[in-house]
């Protein structure tokens, strides 16, 4: 959070909650003049990375729900939220990618040779 946002948050913001990742969510204490809604924003823990926001808070942040969906509403089959890893060292690389050794699997035109005993 840069200094401007920090001062803005101190003057107008009201803390609503924080997610498991440590991002803190705020909304304005005063309603906006035309929309009648209060402004909502997030203070990231660490670098600003929007894909780190979990689904529960994403819905609230985009005015889909009035209140954040509580953690207790998670279903057993829901996977933990994962940020978009593209561009990070942990990003997906297809088999045969140079960073995964560069060895491609055999092409489909290949055949299976017989060996004794098979």
């Amino acid at each position, binding site marked *: 959070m840069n200094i401007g946002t920090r001062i803005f948050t101190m003057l107008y913001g009201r803390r609503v909650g924080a997610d498991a990742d440590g991002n803190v969510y705020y909304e304005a204490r005063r309603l906006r003049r035309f929309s009648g809604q209060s402004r909502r924003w997030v203070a990231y823990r660490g670098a600003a990375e929007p894909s780190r926001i979990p689904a529960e808070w994403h819905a609230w942040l985009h005015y889909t729900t009035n209140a954040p969906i509580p953690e207790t509403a998670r279903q057993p089959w829901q996977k933990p939220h994962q940020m978009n890893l593209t561009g990070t060292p942990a990003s997906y690389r297809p088999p045969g990618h140079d960073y995964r050794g560069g060895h491609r699997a055999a092409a489909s035109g290949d055949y*299976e040779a017989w060996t004794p005993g*098979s």
Partner: protein
Amino acid sequence: MAKVTVDGIVVEVPNGSTVLQACELAGKEIPRFCYHERLSIAGNCRMCLVEIEKAPKPVASCAFPVADNMVVKTDTPMVRNGRRGVMEFLLINHPLDCPICDQGGECDLQDQALGYGMDHTRYEENKRAVKDKNLGPLVKTVMTRCIHCTRCIRFVTEIAGVPDLGATSRGESLEVGTYVEKALGSELSGNIIDLCPVGALTSKPYAFVARPWELKKTDSVDVLDAVGTNIRIDSRGPEVLRILPRLNEEVNEEWLADKARFSMDGLKRRRLDRPWVRRDGKLVQATWGDAFTVIAERLQGVAGERIGALAGDLCDAESMVALKDLLTALGSANLDCRQDGVLLQAGRRDFYTFNSTIAAIEEADALLLIGTNPRREAPVINARIRKRWLASKMLIGLIGETAELTYDFQHVGGDAGAFDGLRDASAGFGKTLADANKPMVIVGQPALRQPGVLAAVWELAGAIGALAGEWHGFNVLHTAAARVGALDLGFVPGQGGRDLAGMLNGGVDVLWLLGADEFDTARIGRNTFVIYQGHHGDRGAARADVILPGSAYTEKSGTYVNTEGRVQRGLRAVYPPGEAREDWTIIRALSEVLGKTLPYDDLPGVRARLEQVNPVFGRTNFLPRFGVSDRSGPGQGSGRASGPFGVAIENYYQTDPISRASPTMAACTETFATTPLLQAAE
């Protein structure tokens, strides 16, 4: 004859023809989805609209009979508008998934939409969605794409002869399916993939594999049964991706049996791609030079009569003639091609071929099947018999194991004892045969394993009038594609030579197996040196002392003779894998190492030699019809026929090294092993 004017062209067509046929004759192409030459007329797609003078409305030409002096217009604004409207209706519910549809590029709807499609849709409602049906391991369904042409239903009911497919509901909610979920129990089921004008029925093993324009198309001949079905091999790079039938009215019309169509994934498994040599009891990899040296050393000092050769069921004639010439040069007459032990002799050709020809089944008026189940041994011939049976209610009798044959037949007896009863021309099926003008007898391989049956059947055929100067009604139905070619080449024991039984159990010291896998290899003598030349690691390769990798039928230009005696040539579609070579070149190369160089070194040379051995090889693709010139029968031989004939093919889907290596055929075996079809025949 009716005189019809089509777009100003006057054509004469037989009475009762349809307007569409008249238009075809005039060279006008009429778009159609439901109409098919070999199926009954349904007239439900309405795409073939034409304008007929004095008719108030456009007329569906496929279902409208011609009349004399009819004036037909196929390209007027009314016709074009009508077809455009039909196309719009068809596209209301057809999904726009061409980019992921396997039919893309060879789709009738796609092609015709180019000519008659609107540039945009006027339809805003949701498209109809239909649940996909499971038709077994061969045919993939995407039923939302179905345009209800009912070609598949008509094919399965009329030609394949199984009551499996049908339509439920009507109008927009009509669905094509099997009523109760089941796999299509027909050996010809793959043909509905070709018939389907859209992508509703596609090949399951070929799903999402290739686009038609990527494929190299090669004309060839199928070798997985003895029909000699004409096929087109579609390949990409080193891989055969699919096999489709080619049109040949005299052999397969346009059908192809499932084993031939779907077993090509077996061509990629268990392949012999390098020579192997057995050293200290274990097979080790070797080079061609090593393998030839080992063979040459082993053959040193072995007398000619201690060497033998067996030809398998999938061999081309070129390799068999080369092997026969090599064995003759080595001084051996121990040759055999009859792995299943049938008592057929080389020599007079009408004792071992399907003399009537396949097309002549459509002229026969009584048929006697002896020890054969054509449905499994030759599904395409079975379809031809059914076609004749439907057209004329030809009476069919069966001697041997009863089975579900897709037509009605009278079970005359179970063994050779039933022949005598048929000579009685006053009652029973004997009367049917005696009354027939063109009676036909088809004898299968299991019957011919019993001594004396060939002579008895020939005599019976003579007694019922099947051996006439104009009509040859004596037919042998083979199951092995190479068998007739081998008999034509005389690949049977020569003067003083040993047959299969004589060569086993130590009858010879060196045994050459040319793709021979269909006999019990455990019966080969313990000290016999076995040379296996072939393309798949099957029973023969497991027993071999030297393995010479050859090529499968898609990988060589070969000559094959089908059960009729029709000589056909297939072209090479792909190259053999690894170190493998074309089979006759292997034998030619080895002959040089052995110092018995064969006198030909290119393909035309071998083919000239083929023709020299038997002039029939000079006449490819064409087979003249002939009657009986010599009515004397084959020799009786010793021994007596006794007991039931048995069956030639236990499991239709796995009969040879290629289909045994094929995962698709394994899946079919699993699916159909429990169906009543197989149970009934066992």
